[in-house]
C-alpha cells in the first residue's frame, strides 16, 4: 500500500492550514502557544497532559509530537506511560460508567 490517510510528513505542514484561512489559523496558533507556556502548571506537566489526550483521541500526529516534546521537557518513560494509563482509565471508565445506564434499562424492561 503506497498511500495512507496519515502521513508523518503532514505534521510538519500543520502551519499550512493558514493557507485556506489565515485569520483563524493565526488565532488558533497564538492561543496554542499561550496554552503551553509555563503557568500554574509547568510546561512539562502540560506536555504530559497533551500526551495523554493524544492517546485518548488517538491522534498519530499528536502522539509523535508529544512523545518528543515530553522527552525534551525531561519526562521519563515511567511518567509517560503513567500519563497514558490515566488516559486509558478515563476512556475505560467512560465505557464502564455507562454500564449503570444499561443496568437501569435492564431493570426497567425486565421483570424484577
Amino acid at each position: 500500500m503506497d498511500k495512507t490517510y496519515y502521513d508523518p510528513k503532514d505534521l510538519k505542514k500543520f502551519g499550512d492550514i493558514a493557507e485556506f484561512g489565515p485569520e483563524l489559523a493565526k488565532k488558533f496558533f497564538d492561543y496554542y502557544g499561550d496554552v503551553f507556556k509555563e503557568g500554574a502548571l509547568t510546561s512539562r506537566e502540560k506536555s504530559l497532559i497533551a500526551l495523554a489526550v493524544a492517546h485518548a483521541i488517538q491522534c498519530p500526529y499528536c502522539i509523535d509530537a508529544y512523545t518528543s516534546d515530553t522527552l525534551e521537557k525531561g519526562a521519563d518513560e515511567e511518567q509517560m506511560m503513567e500519563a497514558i494509563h490515566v488516559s486509558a482509565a478515563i476512556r475505560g471508565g467512560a465505557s464502564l460508567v455507562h454500564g449503570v445506564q444499561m443496568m437501569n434499562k435492564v431493570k426497567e424492561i425486565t421483570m424484577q
Partner: protein
Amino acid sequence: MKSLKARKHDLALVDRQLEILEDNQSIGIDSFEDKLQQIDHYPLKPTGIEVFQVNVGKMCNQTCKHCHVDAGPDRKEIMTRETMQQCLDAIRDTDIHTVDLTGGAPEMNPDFRWFVRELSALGKHIMVRCNLTIIVANPKYNDLPEFFSKYKVEVISSLPYFSARRTDAQRGEGVFERSIKALKMLNAVGYGKVDSDLMLNLVYNPTGVFMPGSQESLELQFKQKLKDGFSIDFNSLYTITNLPISRFLEYLVISGNYKDYMEKLANAFNPVAAKGVMCRNTISVGWDGYLFDCDFNQMLELNINNSAPDHIKDFDIKKLNNREIIINQHCYGCTAGAGSSCGGATA
C-alpha cells in the same frame, strides 16, 4: 563497545563524516553558511579569546554512545608534557582567564595533575570535564575530589538523566550508580554545597533524537530528583545539544534519524544563539597541539584557518582574534533553540 576507530568504521574517517554533513541539499535545509549570511553574520568572527580549552587526550574509561570524540579505553592519543608546557607558555601573559580541560577522561593523562598545578600557579581558573566514574574507576583516582578542591578546580560532569535506565543506555552499564557514588564523594569535600566556593556543575544532554528542553526547568527537576533520591547537591545544570558528528552521527545514521534530526536543528535555528556561539570566545587545543575553533571542529580535523598559525607552539593571540571561524553543518547544533555550548544554553 569499542570506538569507531577500533572498529575500523567508515565514520572514523572525518572525510566520510563531512561528506554526510555537507550533503544538505538532499535533506532540503540551507547550508549553515547561507543561514549566517541571511542574518548578516558571515563570516563568523571571534569576540576575543577568554576560554582556553585543552583536550589532553582521547583515552577514556567509558565508551558513550554519543561521544563526539570517539573516546574510549582503546584510544591512545594523549597530550605530552612538552605540549602542555607550550600551552602554559602560550597563555602565561595573556588575558585568557579560564582553562577548560577535557578529553577523553582528562584525569587519565599521566601529566594531568602536573598540568593543573602549573595552571593554578599561573592564576588561571581551571575547569575539568570529569565523567565522574573515573573517580571510582581505580584507587589511584579516589583522591581526585581532594585534589580538585585544593586547586579550586571547577568540576563539570555529564549526567544525562536522573535515573539509571536513561543514563546507562547512553553511557554504559552501571555508569549511573558509579556516577552517584562519585557525586557523593565530591559533595563530601564541599563541591556543590551552599556557601562553598567549590563549583560542581552537571551537564544534561538528550539521550536520543530530541533537543534539550528549558535549562532552567530541567535544572529544577534534576535538583529535586538528585536531592530527594540520593541527597546530592550541585550548582548548575548545563543543557547541551548533541552535535551530529562521530558516534552520535553513527547512532543517527543507524537508527534512520539523521535527516529528521538535521531538519529539526535547522528549523530551530535561533539568530540570538548564533551570535552567542562559544567558538567566538574559545580556542580549542588538540592532544597534539593543533588549534581549532571548538572541540567539535577538532574532532572533524577542521583546523583554524590560514590567517593564524594552527599550532600551539606558534600561538599568536592577536592573529587568532582576527581569524574567521570555520563552520560546517554540525554548527546547527549550537544554534538550535536556546543554543548550546560547553557552558549550556546561550540564548
